[in-house]
């Protein structure tokens, strides 16, 4: 029943999304943004990402990998083994067993490698869904499931933990680091309020309001290409547009940026996986 409802939503997307794209050039920016926001909000209660959450739940509970154990019985996301309520909004956090600060996706990957026996290289080979793929990678579905279990809870990255604080400060430096052929840093486009590229609004990630716009609604079902994507992907594609080389999957640099972004949104209530343009 639920699947039918979501498939229905997908069809509505195809039609409405197309109409939206066609008329976008003819209406003014504010109105376009308003229309999209209305449409997005209407659709969010039957987000196609719910299918990813369901798949993620199966993956979380199933015995998998060379060691044939489930994540539910082996993986500690910071609140105890198998405890997932509110775990997503409290990451990145410091994990003693790995002696590292990790964001949610990286931590799940760590559990898949350390507890289930998967090879990191195999997961990192194709970590993000492309438009022609039949479905999202397992890791994306798992992140969707875990994120869904923080719905309605405030972001709460623990900046009192000195290890988290240090990674936050490093993330802040990375966000302001200009290099590459165009001298771009994250903050070149995301360091001032009220700016946009073409019609695309650019949140200022150094403020609570802007950082909230950056992290809210991720992981997301993205209308462009109809794919499910995570914050790891979002950071990856920002670096592409920054004209940088490619950041390694689940690397310290990405964790540092996600620590900076998420902690800047601390206190704001997370609405769960969302829908992005």
């Amino acid at each position, binding site marked *: 029943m639920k699947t039918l409802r979501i498939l229905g939503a997908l069809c509505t997307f195809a039609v409405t999304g197309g109409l939206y794209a066609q008329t976008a050039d003819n209406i003014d920016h504010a109105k376009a943004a308003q229309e999209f926001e209305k449409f997005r909000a209407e659709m969010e209660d039957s987000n196609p990402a719910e299918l990813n959450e369901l798949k993620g739940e199966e993956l979380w509970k199933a015995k998998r990998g060379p060691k044939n154990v489930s994540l539910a019985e082996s993986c500690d996301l910071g609140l105890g083994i198998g405890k997932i309520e509110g775990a997503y909004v409290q990451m990145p956090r410091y994990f003693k067993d790995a002696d590292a600060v990790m964001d949610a996706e990286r931590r799940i990957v760590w559990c898949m490698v350390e507890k289930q026996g998967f090879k990191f290289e195999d997961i990192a080979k194709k970590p993000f869904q492309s438009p022609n793929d039949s479905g999202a990678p397992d890791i994306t579905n798992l992140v969707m499931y875990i994120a869904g279990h923080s719905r309605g809870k405030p972001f709460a990255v623990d900046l009192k933990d000195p290890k988290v604080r240090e990674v936050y400060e490093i993330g802040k430096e990375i966000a302001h680091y200009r290099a590459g052929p165009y001298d771009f840093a994250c903050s070149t486009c995301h360091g001032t309020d009220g700016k946009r590229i073409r019609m695309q609004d650019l949140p200022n990630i150094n403020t609570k309001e802007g950082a909230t716009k950056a992290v809210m609604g991720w992981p997301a079902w993205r209308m462009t290409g109809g794919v499910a994507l995570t914050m790891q992907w979002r950071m990856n594609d920002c670096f592409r547009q920054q*004209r940088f080389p490619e950041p390694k999957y689940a690397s310290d640099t990405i964790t540092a940026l996600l620590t900076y972004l998420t902690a800047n949104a601390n206190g704001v209530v997370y609405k769960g996986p969302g829908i992005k343009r």
Partner: protein
Amino acid sequence: MNRKIVFATLVALPCLTTLLPAQADENYRAKAIAMIQKDFKPRGQADLDRLAEDGVQAICNRTGNHPPEALAKTLEADQMASVKWPADGKLMGDWKKGESLAQSGRGFTWSDKPGLPVGGNCYNCHQISPKEVAYGTIGPSLLHFGKLRGNTPEMQKYVYTKIYNAKIYNLCSEMPRFGRVEALKPEQIKDLVALLLDPESPVNK
């Protein structure tokens, strides 16, 4: 020419940085740079050498984009010295070609084909022709640019050099150095100058 200037900047950099006020976050910056150096891989045309700061980037990164004035003036003059001029000596080209170049935001990412003509990226950040409503706002509006300022030889030279290398006039400008990094050729920059200054360009109607 470029190599000489890079070399000169590299030699000058340690001297210059000692003149800068000590930053409390120097320690985090060093860790951030070390992290960046280990966490990227080359892809497509985007090699790892893109991660290294050149002289201008290093100074801007270390001063929060507010370099001491004397230092800025010296480095801005260096940037001016590396400008290459069009072979025919003319600075205004074809505004129509300029408009289509201004529209394109392609080029230099790991997913762009190397060798593909790079776009001017102008509308990404600037309002230019009144006919294009989908413009960005990171840079100032350039609507009526020539109408307001005229197109004297001095103005042509200013616009040419500004597009060639925006850091000549503002060392830590957010605008890329399109000519300096060879994203745009002198002939293409001439077309963009015409887009802004030619009385026939829609920008000035």
